[in-house]
Structures are given as structure tokens and as C-alpha cells.
């Protein structure tokens, strides 16, 4: 989606080659031939994750097939002091799985067994490489499913979900990964096997599972996840409401929640998005509306009928200019099709798009959308807005042409300004995509020196040598000082051609 423009120049080639051959010979006895890659033509698919603007070639890529191999790889790298970047499906959007040039990429993709499904206790034990959707598919015949549903669920792995604390449309009602994972088995960088959380409702000591959630591969390599399964609702219906004013739509979101309703999904699309997707999916969206809300209700038929009625009333009172309620499953899926296809539709409008991810209190949604409109003018770039309105989790899609370096930098600046606005509006720079490499400078805006120092303390508690994905998520104090100075000298970054990540 985003141009390849920030190739890190490789350090001293000879030293790299020497380290590489040392690492490869150390790992060879641990792994079968096909599970260790180091030739550039084999490792190039691993040079970036879903954030393709940032790329780097690793020393090598290991694809273990058993937990024991993971343990041995970690022990070997620990002894050699070689950093490791864990990787799931590589769909991350913040560069969390981007390689370190003198490090190993540890792909967990081959650990993809569903170890156990227990309908009685509503749990499944799965290996980290299992795809999110594969879990729901495997338990569908039992009337159960795994609730967190990132839009990337067809591809992303549960190990990646744990490390990004991923969410999706259903998270408003059913919670994030954090709320749906009972236990995580992982390997510390030292090679020790540990378990966070338990099948019991709590476990002894400090709640380390909570801190491992969303830790972006920096604390432990996840090798097994026990997830909670929930009963599939008997019925789901969705209301599609149009508004002729963005603010009115945003207020309707708050009004639904204030009325004591927690919908199964509450998503919003602006006009630019509906127009883009309508051309693509023909879902019958109201093209005149400034914004469209999708409000889903699920549960027993009685519950759904009651909730749909209450939500309809609230939406009418909030000034909806049009309301349609899905009459059957096919229609429900049709209403959703545009929301689900917003990314590919954006891809048809422009050569590239840059997807941001900030969260703000619901009451500030209208304010942020207005500000983004101003920024569109300022940067001369269009932005589509399609997002998890019920959670206040925004995903502005900035359209640009990646063949034009200057335009990419404008897009990047635009994105940064949105994130800073999120912090100013009492929110955060990332709701579900993580900090990774992408937002590491914005961390300097959201957190002070003391907090960042504490984050390093947490990191070192798990990984004292700082070998596990060490260049992600937490900026160093120097970096923030540097960034602070850069921000002060006017809106534009000096020397945009220099590597900053």
C-alpha cells in the first residue's frame, strides 16, 4: 500500500556476512533444512509487515515447527546476543514485525495446530500461528465462536492478536483480545517456558498476563494461547442510519450508549468512504448522507427485536435522515459489505493509502472529523473515515501517490498531526494497531520521560538483555529529545530524506 522508500543502508557488509554465517551454523542443528532461510531471495518476503513503507532485510529467518525448536532458537540467540523479531502472519500495520538488520526473524507461522477444543468449558487451546478466523471456523459446529474479529481476521494469527491486543467490530460488546484470552504460554528470551494467566479466574502474583497483552513481541515469544469461546447469538440484525451532518451522526453514537445500549457493533463511514465503496460493492448506501452508521444487535430473537426498536428510536431522535433495518441475513451481510471492503475500495481511489489508528472519547468524534477536514486542505490530500465509532477508535485512510516522495512525506505528516490531535482530545495514538516502528515518535507526545522509563523497566524485567524486538514501541530518551527539537522547528520535519526509524 505504501511505497518502499526507507531502505536502511546495510552496515558493514563483511561483518554482517560473518555474523550471518555464524548464526546460520548455530541454528542448523536445531531446524530442518527448509525451516531456516538466509539467502536474500528467500528472506525478502519477510523484510516488512503490513506497513510496507518500512523495510529491512534480516540476517536470517527461522520457521520452527515445534515449541522445543523455539526454545532452542531463543537459547542460541541469547547466548550469541543476537536480537529476535517474532512474527505471526505479518499483517501488522505499525511495523512491529519489521526485521532488525543484525537480527533473526522468528516466524511462528508453522505452529498452526489447534491443540484442543473443549465445548464444555468453552475454550480452545491453539498454537500461535493459527489464524483468527480459523478458530471460529473450527468451533462453528458447536454453536460457538471466538469474538474478537480484526478486519484482517482471515489472515492474522492469534499470536499476533495477543501481541497487538487486537480488536474489531464485535469488541464494543465482547471485548478485545485481552478480555477473551485466558492463558498464554510463552518463552522468555532466556529460553525458559512460562505461563501467563490460567484457566482459573485469576492466578497467583501480579497480573502478568495483562502486561503481555499488546506487548508487541517485546516480552516473550508466544507459543500457545487458550482462548475463551462464546455462544453464537441466535440472530443478528443491523440498522443502517444516514445523517446529513457529521456532528449529528457522531452525537447519535453517544446517544445510543447513553441510552444504556451496547450494540454488537457500531461503525461509522463518512461520505467519501460510502461513495468509494458503493462503486465497489453496490450495497445500496445513501450517497447523499454525510455519514452512515451501522448499528448491529445480536442475541435471542426477543432481545434483538427489543434492542432494534430501542436503537431505532434513539437514531430517529438524533435526527437520522434515513433508516434501513436488515430483514434477513443476506441483507445484513450486504449492509456490512461496504464497511468490510473499505480498505480495498480506498485502494482503488488512489495509488496508496496510509491507515492511521487513534482512539478518542466518543464525544470528540465530531471534533476530530472536522479537524481532519481542515487537515485535508492543509496537506492537499484526501482522507477517508471509516471506523469503530462505538469505541471511538478512528482509522483515517490518507490517500496519496507513493511514486511521489514528497507526497508520501505529506501523508506521513498528516498522519502524525491526526495522532497528536487524538492525544489532545484526551485519547491515544493507537487503539489496536500498535506502536511498532511507525508511531515510536508519537509515543514522545503521549508519554513523558518517567512513563517511558517505566516502560523500559517493564521491558527489562522480562528481557534484561533487551534482545526481543528491542527497537519497537518504546522510544529511547534520546530519540524523544531529538523528536521534540524537530517538532519545535516548524510543522515540517527537517531532513525528511534521513532515516528516522
Amino acid at each position, binding site marked *: 500500500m505504501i511505497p518502499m522508500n526507507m531502505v536502511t543502508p546495510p552496515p558493514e557488509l563483511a561483518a554482517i556476512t560473518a555474523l550471518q554465517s555464524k548464526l546460520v551454523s548455530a541454528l542448523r542443528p536445531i531446524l530442518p533444512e527448509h525451516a531456516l532461510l538466509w539467502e536474500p531471495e528467500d528472506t525478502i518476503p519477510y523484510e516488512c509487515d503490513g506497513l510496507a513503507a518500512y523495510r529491512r532485510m534480516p540476517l536470517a529467518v527461522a520457521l520452527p515447527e515445534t515449541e522445543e525448536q523455539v526454545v532452542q532458537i531463543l537459547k542460541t540467540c541469547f547466548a550469541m546476543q543476537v536480537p529476535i523479531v517474532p512474527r505471526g502472519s505479518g499483517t501488522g500495520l505499525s511495523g512491529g514485525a519489521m526485521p532488525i538488520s543484525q537480527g533473526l526473524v522468528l516466524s511462528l507461522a508453522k505452529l498452526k495446530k489447534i491443540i484442543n477444543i473443549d465445548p464444555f468449558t468453552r475454550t480452545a487451546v491453539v498454537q500461535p500461528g493459527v489464524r483468527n478466523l480459523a478458530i471460529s471456523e473450527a468451533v462453528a459446529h458447536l454453536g460457538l465462536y471466538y469474538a474478537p474479529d480484526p478486519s484482517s481476521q482471515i489472515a492474522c494469527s492469534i499470536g499476533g492478536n495477543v501481541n497487538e491486543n487486537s480488536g474489531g467490530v464485535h469488541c464494543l460488546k465482547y471485548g478485545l483480545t485481552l478480555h477473551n484470552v485466558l492463558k498464554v504460554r510463552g518463552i522468555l528470551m532466556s529460553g525458559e517456558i512460562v*505461563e501467563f494467566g*490460567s484457566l482459573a479466574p485469576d492466578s497467583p502474583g501480579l*497480573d502478568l498476563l495483562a502486561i503481555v497483552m499488546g*506487548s508487541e513481541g517485546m516480552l516473550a515469544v508466544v507459543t500457545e494461547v487458550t482462548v475463551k469461546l462464546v455462544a453464537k447469538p441466535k440472530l443478528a440484525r443491523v440498522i443502517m442510519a444516514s445523517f446529513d451532518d457529521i456532528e449529528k451522526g457522531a452525537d447519535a453514537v453517544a446517544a445510543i450508549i447513553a441510552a444504556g445500549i451496547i450494540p454488537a457493533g457500531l461503525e461509522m463511514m463518512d461520505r467519501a468512504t460510502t461513495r468509494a465503496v458503493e462503486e465497489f460493492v453496490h450495497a445500496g448506501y445513501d450517497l447523499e448522507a454525510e455519514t452512515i452508521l451501522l448499528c448491529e444487535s445480536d*442475541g435471542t430473537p426477543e432481545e434483538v427485536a427489543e434492542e432494534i426498536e430501542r436503537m431505532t428510536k434513539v437514531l430517529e431522535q438524533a435526527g437520522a435522515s434515513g433508516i434501513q433495518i436488515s430483514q434477513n441475513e443476506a441483507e445484513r451481510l450486504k449492509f456490512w459489505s461496504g464497511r468490510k471492503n473499505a480498505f480495498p475500495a480506498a485502494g482503488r481511489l488512489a495509488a496508496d493509502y496510509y491507515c492511521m489508528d487513534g482512539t478518542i472519547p*466518543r464525544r470528540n468524534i465530531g471534533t476530530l472529523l472536522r479537524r481532519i477536514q481542515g487537515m485535508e486542505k492543509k496537506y492537499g490530500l484526501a482522507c477517508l473515515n471509516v471506523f469503530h465509532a462505538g469505541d471511538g477508535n478512528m482509522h483515517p485512510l490518507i490517500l496519496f501517490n507513493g511514486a511521489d516522495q514528497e507526497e508520501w512525506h505529506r501523508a506521513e505528516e498528516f498522519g502524525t498531526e491526526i495522532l497528536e490531535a487524538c492525544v489532545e482530545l484526551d485519547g*491515544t495514538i493507537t487503539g489496536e494497531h500498535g506502536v511498532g516502528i511507525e508511531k515510536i515518535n508519537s509515543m514522545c507526545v503521549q508519554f513523558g520521560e518517567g512513563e517511558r522509563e517505566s516502560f523500559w523497566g517493564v521491558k527489562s524485567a522480562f528481557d534484561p538483555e533487551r534482545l526481543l524486538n528491542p527497537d519497537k514501541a518504546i522510544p529511547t530518551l534520546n530519540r524523544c529529545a531529538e523528536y521534540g527539537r524537530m517538532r519545535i522547528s516548524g510543522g515540517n520535519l527537517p531532513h525528511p530524506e534521513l532515516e528516522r526509524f
Partner: protein
Amino acid sequence: MSASSNTNIDLFQEQILAAVKNKTPLSIQGGGTKSWYGNANSYAKLDTRTYSGILEYQPEELVITACAGTPLKEIEAALADKNQVLAFEPPHFGDSATFGGAIAAGLAGPGRISAGNLRDFVLGARILDGKGQDLSFGGKVMKNVAGYDVSRLLPGSMGTLSLLLEASVKVLPRPAATASLRCNITQARALQLLNEWAGQPLPLSASCWIGSSIGGDGELTIRLAGAAAAVKAAIPIMGAAVNASELEPQLASDFWAALREQQLAVFSNLNSDETLYRLALPAACGTLAFENAHGDIALEWHGQQRWLKALGDDATFTSIKALASAHGGHATRFKQGSNIDPGKQRFTLLSEQVHSTALEAVQARLRTAFDPAGIFATSRLP
């Protein structure tokens, strides 16, 4: 907040820095309603009650932010006013319970099995660390993955990690309808049914079985909560399965309150040589034979939380811990009779759990990161 709030924080900071200097730990205390819980200590107290008040509450955001010393009563009253609740249901264990104490104790009431635990509801926290630094983590929004989720380390940390100054927690609308059903069935049948029901789209919100640990029928009470139509539809389905009768609403709410406050006979009247043990167990755990239980036992959270009274000696605790551990859970000496040595260890240790030993070092380093001088190292939580 009034101007006095900053003064309060300054005073806390002074107290912390003095403790660092004198190398004397501080025992953080809110209302002291939980002073009997956790390992005992006799360190100097840091009283949080001076830092009190609701800082922000907007019902449509489903978030309340308050100072740690705020009385729970005040928070509940503000929420009730807007028809919202703390979904994990705070017991009061005394009038003076505080918001900070609740979070630090990390306990949850009957609704935990359906709503989630206290930690799940914490969104952000402002703390003073062991260096007296004023730090904020998390925030006031539902989704946030910026930095490590430090605010969620505090629930259950019992004041051993840092001083909680303020917290933001998620709140929920009060369920539109509730109903409670009661029947007499065996423990085994209750456990079977509760887990089956929980796997179906039914509005099951809480359960409690009380009876003898050695067999026979006991009394199962269940609570349904949710949309009025859903509750109404579920009553005949569940009622028919166990021949249950619906409790009169006042009786029902009294029962759940008494359970939450541990005022039922099964918890109270602790003899001087007895301990009230708490077991946390996986859902799969069937009936357990507590040969040494004194009187009835209580099962909450569909059997995942179990309570029994037995002798408070080390041998009994060791055997109960072993039983819990063999089933994938852990045990706590929750409340102690007056004659039991308060110095006795209350919790299962990480080193007593499979695959947790290596976490002891992690936990110790974490504590050092937040509290290098060890002034919060009161060992209330080992």
C-alpha cells in the same frame, strides 16, 4: 479538583521520599476494610482517604475517573443516578471502602463470571512510583495499545507496586431486567448444568451453590440479567430443566447482596482456629472432596470460585493448595480466625505453580523497576 488535591499529592510524595531515605516500607491503606486480607505487616501507614473525589464522569463515555481515596459509596451513588453500575459488583465489607483499595485488592463479586474481573474494566491509572514520580498510564478510552498496559498490573497488587492516585474504570448500563431462580440439586448436576447453560445464548449472570462437600442436594441460586425479553424467555427454559422456582425480587436482591458481602452463614461465624479458604479453579473442575471442610461449602462463578471453612494450620492449607493445583487452580487463606498466627502465608506462590517459577524473577524485577528502594515491599502480596 480543589487546590488541596495537589497538596495531597505533594504530601504523599514527601512521605514516599522520606520512606526511601529511612528505608522503611509504607503500608498503603484506604478505608482499611480489607486490612485482614493478604499477608500482615506493621509498617507505617500511608492513608489515601485525603485524596478523594470523582474527577470525571460522563455516562455516554461509560467511564468514571476518580481519586483513589474516594468512598465506594460515593461512586456507586453517582453511577446509580445515571442507571449505570460497576459490573463486577463491589461488596462493601464496611462503609469506608475506597476506590483505590478496591482496585488494589482486585476482588470481584458474583457478576464476575459473566462481566469479567476488575482488571478487565481498568482503563487507566495515575500513580506515584517508589521514587515519588507522578506517572500516568493507559487512559480514558476503551481501546489503547500505546505502551505497556501498566494500569492493569495494579488490580490485585495489594499496594505492593505503587501508590494508586487516580483510576479510570469502565462502567456499564444497569441490565434492563433481572430474575433469580432457585432449586435443590447435587453439586455435580449444578456444575454440569451451569457450564452447559454458559455455552448457550442465555442471559446467565451469576450462580451460587451451597451445600455439603460430601454429597447430597444443595441449594442452587442463579441470576439472569439482560434485555427484558431475553430474561423472560430464559426463565421457562432454565426453570423446567431443574424444577426451579423464581425468587421474589426483594428476596433475590437480599440474597445476592449477602453473598457479595459474605454475610451468609457459609462464610461467617469463623471459629478462632478456622480459616476461610478461597479456591480459584478452571471451569472443567468437577466436584472436589474437601474431607476437612467444616460445614457447608459455597461455589460461585459456576464453580470457578469455591469457599470452605477448615482448620487454619499449615498442613490443611498445604493439602488445599495441592488439591487446587492438581486441578489447575490455586488457593488462598482468605480470612483467618482470631487465634491463627497473622504471620502465616496467605497465598499460593508462583514457585508452587508449574511453569511459573521463572516468573518470580520477572516479578521481582518489575517491582524493582517501579519501586527500587522497596518502600512498597510490604509483602501483603508475596
